[in-house]
């Protein structure tokens, strides 16, 4: 049945509002959060594929019974296959991404409930609302609908930052809001230009309008719309001019909150990136600009990551740098490269989430994130150190794990598409990623313990360790059987081009 698709967005919003209502009572919030947390990964499994047209207005070519008594001016013009309603598209690729989002939200809520003494309903409200917003951004085929949920996800990210107990978070939140109020109106302006040109905001209709010549391709207004929407995308996904504010946001959130924030960023990056590739594929300059910007993101992100001394900021820059891989895959634009980039996006969500939760255990135990004041944590809890080491190997692309498959596919697609230098660039930067990880691992676990370092809480909650282990198992599963994910992505990529 097609009408279950909006449930993917309605269920998280419903849970969010319920959790917000019972903020005060801890027991109730914990219970509700866990129940709703479990429903999140389950809902995408039961919803079957298809398009959902809100209000039941499916386009005329689908059920021509409506079109019988319409005047011929409508039936044989391109109006015949326009989408009158907001449409949600739910396919194999969307199902995988939303399932992974559901898993990560569940683990983050699981760890956050156990790590903080009092369960805050507002914090879980913001996480669920952000999940709903990002799922809607992913499913929608209507670009204004995408802008609304883009703004909601910006507001929830600011809210999640303000829920953490790290000082100087208000300054970063205000800076993030300032930049959002410069970039998001530009995105809206781009959408307005598209609306002015093609008369509608449905993405497939815009593409039909451009293909059937309603709009001449080298129309300067269309180019201006492409530039503005690309600028909004840069902000939403934390690419170069906005990478320092995005990594500052990650470093100012509690670690498990940062694990969810980076998932929101990757979702916005992938969904808006695919929209831009679909609409403006005919501008050849666009691919070049995305390629240069993603390369710049990788270079700046990873080179800044290695020179930081606060390890949360380091992982933040790493997360921004890893996004460059996905951008390069999107820019190369062959079927293999888009499959590889979607696979890399999924792996990056899992691995950066794991890294942030791992880092959270150190912050939970010692309270400081400055690598100079840390050391000798290996004796404290060797098992967590072992999992953290495995995550580092996974991030660098060591075989049994999933990032190996996706980076291999990415480099092969770059070589096949005739960009050997991009392949070389990816290899160099994944080496430096691993070097950053070794620096974090050494300064936190292997370095002799400085005397003034005190341990605040003796034991890491069992839940965090369990969630790390389960996430790692998902990574290994994806690494050993990548075709679960890749054929869904390659079907999507074939449909895209």
């Amino acid at each position, binding site marked *: 049945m097609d009408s279950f698709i909006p449930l993917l967005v309605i269920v998280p919003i419903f849970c969010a509002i319920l959790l917000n209502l019972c903020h005060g009572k801890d027991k109730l919030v914990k219970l509700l959060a866990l129940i709703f947390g479990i429903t999140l990964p389950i809902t995408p499994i039961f919803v079957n594929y298809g398009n959902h047209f809100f209000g039941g207005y499916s386009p005329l070519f689908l059920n021509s019974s409506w079109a019988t008594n319409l005047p011929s001016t409508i039936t044989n013009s391109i109006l015949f296959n326009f989408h009158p309603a907001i449409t949600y598209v739910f396919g194999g690729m969307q199902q995988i991404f939303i399932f992974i989002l559901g898993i990560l939200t569940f683990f983050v809520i699981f760890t956050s409930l156990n790590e903080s003494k009092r369960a805050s309903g507002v914090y879980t409200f913001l996480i669920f609302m952000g999940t709903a917003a990002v799922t809607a951004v992913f499913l929608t085929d209507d670009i204004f609908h995408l802008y609304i949920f883009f703004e909601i996800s910006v507001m929830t990210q600011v809210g999640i930052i303000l829920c953490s107990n790290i000082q100087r978070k208000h300054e970063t939140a205000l800076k993030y809001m300032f930049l959002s109020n410069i970039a998001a109106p530009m995105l809206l302006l781009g959408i307005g230009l598209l609306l002015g040109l093609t008369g509608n905001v449905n993405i497939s209709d815009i593409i039909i309008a451009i293909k059937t010549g309603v709009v001449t391709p080298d129309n300067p207004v269309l180019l201006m719309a492409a*530039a503005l929407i690309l600028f909004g995308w840069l902000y939403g996904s934390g690419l170069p001019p906005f990478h320092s504010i995005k990594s500052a946001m990650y470093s100012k959130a509690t670690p498990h909150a940062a694990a969810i924030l980076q998932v929101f960023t990757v979702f916005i990056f992938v969904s808006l990136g695919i929209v831009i590739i679909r609409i403006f594929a005919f501008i050849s300059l666009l691919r070049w600009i995305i390629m240069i910007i993603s390369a710049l993101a990788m270079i700046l992100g990873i080179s800044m990551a290695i*020179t930081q001394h606060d390890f949360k900021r380091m992982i933040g820059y790493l997360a921004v740098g890893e996004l460059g891989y996905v951008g390069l895959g999107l820019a190369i634009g062959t079927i293999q490269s888009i499959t590889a980039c979607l696979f890399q996006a999924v792996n990056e969500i899992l691995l950066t989430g794991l890294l942030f939760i791992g880092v959270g255990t150190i912050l939970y135990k010692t309270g400081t994130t400055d690598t100079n004041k840390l050391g000798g944590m290996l004796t404290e809890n060797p098992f967590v150190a072992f999992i953290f080491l495995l995550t580092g190997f996974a991030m660098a692309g060591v075989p049994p794990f999933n990032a190996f498959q996706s980076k291999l596919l990415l480099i092969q697609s770059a070589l096949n598409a005739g960009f050997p230098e991009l392949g070389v660039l990816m290899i160099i930067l994944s080496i430096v990623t691993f070097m950053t990880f070794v620096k974090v691992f050494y300064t936190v676990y292997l370095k002799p313990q400085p005397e003034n370092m005190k341990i605040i809480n003796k034991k890491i909650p069992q839940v965090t360790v369990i969630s790390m282990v389960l996430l790692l198992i998902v990574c290994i599963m994806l690494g050993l059987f990548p075709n679960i994910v890749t054929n869904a992505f390659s079907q999507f990529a074939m449909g895209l081009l």
Partner: protein
Amino acid sequence: MNLYDLVNDKIKQIQSKTENETVSGVSTASYLASELVVIVSILITSILLRKINPILMIMGILVIFAIILTNMPIMPKLRRAQNDSLNNMMFYALITLALLVSMFYWGVKYV
């Protein structure tokens, strides 16, 4: 006075201007690594210009190489350029917006 001590003192001298924290072996290695990565990867990405036309690529690489050589310790400049002050970020955001708009407006003919 082998190469490592030379580099170590250079970084100590640079860092004393910005942050005043201990320059351990790890931070020296990471500064060196980031410096090398930035130089190498910018040069490699400039090879991409060959798709537009090879002469542009040769010119590009020479220009970039000259720029890198003149201000050799790039990392301190890069780190200072990416600090978190609001005006700095807004300035770079608007520069990118202007660059994007003008590239799309005029550049489409050439690529």
